């Protein structure tokens, strides 16, 4: 936003939601909501799921072509496309801001695509040509969490800007600032706890701090997000019972998590995080290795649940093996 204000002035603050409905060649109707001002448009094509290819091909092209009418200047800005890999989209834009020049005079529209690492491969390929062809009229800002999921041809067309997650100290500083402004007292220890439990995700940290403030029993214990609590329950359970029946119980819990739209990757991470403290060093290495492997396979598979389940089964085996070796059960 800051970058855009730099370029276009305060007009960009006037955003509106817009629904676009279009049809795929197969006749399915897709609705996509975009957010934008006169000068920029922000969208998340991966919302369209498997049909995101059509979003990229149709909608973006349309926007890119039409924007010429609005901005009728002829000067082409030398600004390159920016692709940022970061954990926070806001930060990405901020970083890109330093690159800008020519305040208020730009004659191009900015298309901001969030979560571009969640685009299917087909959609990413669809983007390749669009990016270059409409360079006169629009600039693309792609934002993603994981650069490795963006295909090479796209990466080579972008200026990569890496935005690192804030350090614990930085986070504590931010939290304290916020607390002061909201006139809430936040002890340094609570601050550190929040920082370490939010995986350096500033948004999560702020929201956690806020929950903390609202929750009636202040300071008693740091309230983790519900899903994280649930995952650690699951971890406890699979450490307790390793058997086919235990696997089925774990399956039920995994279904619950997935059913509540917790992304499988997040489940993997949280599960391993919850498991590791319970394990000896020797086992840690193995578990992390196979978690990585199963997570990789998950992306190539169809049904998330069974890959998670296979990981749980594997973990049960490793854990049992280790216990039997070392404690001679």
């Amino acid at each position, binding site marked *: 936003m800051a970058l855009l204000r730099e370029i276009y002035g305060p007009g960009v603050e006037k955003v509106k939601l817009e*629904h676009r409905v279009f049809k795929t060649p197969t006749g399915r109707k897709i609705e996509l909501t975009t957010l934008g001002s006169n000068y920029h448009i922000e969208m998340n094509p991966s919302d369209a799921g498997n049909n995101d290819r059509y979003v990229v091909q149709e909608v973006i092209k349309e926007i890119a072509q039409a924007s010429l009418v609005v901005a009728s200047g002829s000067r082409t800005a030398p600004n390159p496309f920016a692709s940022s890999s970061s954990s926070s989209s806001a930060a990405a834009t901020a970083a890109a801001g330093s690159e800008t020049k020519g305040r208020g005079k730009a004659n191009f529209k900015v298309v901001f695509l969030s979560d571009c690492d969640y685009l299917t491969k087909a959609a990413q390929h669809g983007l390749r040509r669009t990016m270059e062809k409409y360079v006169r009229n629009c600039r693309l800002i792609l934002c993603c969490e994981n650069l490795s999921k963006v295909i090479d041809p796209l990466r080579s067309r972008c200026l990569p800007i890496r935005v690192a997650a804030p350090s614990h100290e930085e986070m504590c500083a931010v939290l304290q600032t916020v607390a002061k*402004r909201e006139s809430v007292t936040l002890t340094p220890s609570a601050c550190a706890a929040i920082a370490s439990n939010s995986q350096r995700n500033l948004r999560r940290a702020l929201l956690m701090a806020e929950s903390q403030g609202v929750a009636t029993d202040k300071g008693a214990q740091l309230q983790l997000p519900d899903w994280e609590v649930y995952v650690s329950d699951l971890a406890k359970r699979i450490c307790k019972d390793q058997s086919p029946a235990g696997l089925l119980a774990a399956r039920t819990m995994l279904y619950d998590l997935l*059913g509540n739209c917790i992304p499988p990757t997040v489940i993997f991470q949280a599960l391993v995080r919850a498991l590791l403290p319970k394990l000896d060093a020797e086992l840690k290495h193995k578990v992390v290795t196979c978690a990585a492997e199963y997570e990789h396979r998950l992306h190539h598979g169809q049904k998330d649940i069974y890959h998670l389940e296979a990981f749980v089964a594997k973990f049960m085996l490793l854990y049992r093996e280790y216990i039997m070796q070392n404690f001679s059960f």
Partner: protein
Amino acid sequence: MTKDIRSFFSKPAHNPAAPKSTSPTSKTATSKRKEIPSPAKESTKKGRTTSPRKREKSSAKHSSSSKKAIDIEDLEDDNDFEVDDDDDDDFEDTDDIVVVSASKKKEPRTRGTNKVQAPTPASNKRARDPVTTKDEERPAKKATTPKSKAKAKSPRKASTASTSQAADPRLPLANQTIVITGELDKFSSREEAAEELQRLGAKVTTSVSGRTSYLVAGHVLEDGRPTSQSKKYKTAQEKGTTILDEPAFLEFLEEARAKADAANAAHAAAQPRAPTTAPKAPSSSSSSSQTSAARWTATSSSSSASGLRSVDEDNILWVDKYKPMTVADLVGNTKAVADLTRWLRDWDAVHIKKTLQIKYNKQNPGAKAAILSGPPGIGKTSAATIVARATGYDVIELNASDARSKKVVRAVVGDAAHSASVMALGSRSEAEAKKKAKRVIIMDEVDGMSSDDRGGNQELIQIIKQSRVPIICICNDRQKNAVRSLSNYCFDLRFARPSLPSLTKRVIEIAQKEGMDAMPNAVERLVKSSNGDVRQVIGLLQMWKATSNTITFDDVGRQEASLKKDQTFALTAFDAATFLFGTASKPASFDLRYNAFFVDYDLIPLMVAENYPKSVGAGSRHPPSSLETLKQLSAAADAYCDADIVSQQIRGAQQWGLLPLSAALHLRVANISGGSIGFPGFPEWLGKNSARGKKKRLLTETAMHMRQKTMMNSQTLRLDYMDALRNSIVRPLHNGAPEDIDATIESMQSYGLSRDDVFETMQEVRLENADPKLFEIPTKVKSAFTRKFNKLGHLSQALVHEQGIVGLKPTKRKKQKSLDASQNEGGSQGSADDDDDDDEDDDDMDALLQAGASKSGGKRAAAKSTSSKKANGKQPRKKR
């Protein structure tokens, strides 16, 4: 080796429970037997043609005990396709209808020839078989049983027996019941031995009872115990059944085979003579060697006597040619047919004249319509038509080949149902003229009322309610939703598959009429493989006729492979999944399991995934948490992941060529897990996945509402915001004070949330560990909240709505505003107008709310009000 696929799904019963026959009887019979040399000549006890010799024989029968007659009856039931209350009815029923005239006449002569050509097995055996002591009396006893049966049952029944299981000299073991236990060295499996016995005409059962002729005992049982410990062996000893060890059995078999060969040779020798004998009389027709001309005389002469019609057209389907014409012609389902007849007969009295009241029971016999349900090919439509005709109704039939939309049903059926008959005007006979105004509507294949026939079933129910004529509905699948609702208004009649013996009998008759040489054991196998489908068997028979005139046991065996394949495809996904996992002791061949996968290649993978942990648990010999079991479990899970990755290639990348690989990989999962699963659980995945889809939609929607104020997508909403939102929005409501409600509404508006976002999305998207009380808000508070929100929040909602669909319906006030706005803005485009509009609206709304907050994007205000806005307010600041 031919294993019936069904054998995997059912375990053999091990409880013999039939009365034991007394050996004194056998002995008397033995002595009498000597006077009558032919072995299983059972019983051709039919009045007119009985020869003096035969009378002698029938007198001999009188000495047999009636107890044995019961044995025989049980025996016949043994082979029924399904256990059914009215098995016995079936049997009797078929007795009534059997058409025997042609074969009756043939019988004596055949026997005469045979006697000369083939030595009787029983007497031979006695002479040659020194191995087993009891051997002698057993065959003798068996030979007499048909007679005893003839005695116990009506004479008619006796004639039936002669037609169906007439002792063909080529089947020396006919009427022998044999049980096998233990492992036989010479045969790779019991099934193989059983097949060998069946080829020679014997009946092979799985448990020993009083009527078992022999128990063949291998030296050791499958599980390694000596045979003498087996239950069968013990029962056999108790009952005094002859026990053959393997050498004795082989010898026995050899002997029977020799006899069969001799008889076959004789039969073959008889063939060339046939043309000369044929013209003589239809009586020679049983040898099936007659010319087709003679055959036609034979069949047409018999047709008048029997109820069966044969149409003089060569190219008509046999199914139509031998269509049952009278109630008595129907095979099986006597009770259902009788019920239907009664229902139809009384219909007028019950529903029109109201002179008769019928008590309600589960079957609902007083209904205005009847519904016949049952598997295909067993004569439901035929039964309905025949019964209708027999009770003097005209038939209007509508089936799946007719369009049956609501409109059509109303037009055709409705008219017919409400008006009097016109069709009967041209009635042919006086009897019919009497009944003229009567007719019945047969709605065939009602379960096939598909999407095109939408509303057809509902309309049908309406029509049934108002109808003035009886309606008979026919369907296969009684459990379908549409049919179930229909059946509430119907007299529920279920048709079962006819019993094996009665159907076999009928098929043999038809074969004989067509001049085919059908061995009873071969026909039985054919009937078995079609699973009681009369139509299919007759069709198969006709196909057969095209290539060959004789049907032998082995021929059918060869065909069975292809029949079995069809059977695999007829399985449901549940059966297939069970089959796929199989049992540890008896895995099916790869091919069969591979085929089972293709029963439904969408559902089976899910079934496999759903059930493999169960299978591992059941299949492992180790305790559930042993290392071995866990290894197996993990291996199976990994194997499934491999299969899943292939599935993704198939679906995602449209690599359908990989489907066979996918099938094999899924088999691998089943193979690794290795245990049988009992009844497979239905894949949870389907339900869970759709629940996930729904929640995802809700989240995306909510995220969309919030997006204007915060930078987010549905994922961050779920992971990060959810808890905070619940706390700041839902919690205050618990107190129920007005200012808390205000606080909630304020937070919601600062986020741009609607009421649904809170009470649908937030309530819906929750894990099991969530505080169940969170959404238990007192009704009073909730309604207070709703009132307040609707009053104040209306603007906010309208805002959301408008943002959703741009310029949907600007109110007058708004139009004014947008005019102003465009003037202010000076030349900006339409979209900009709306923008400003929204912005001003914001201010407007805020003023109304008097919250003194959320001006232009809610940033400045955030700090002042509830802490829920902190994050919201801070976020943009952070960005900079």
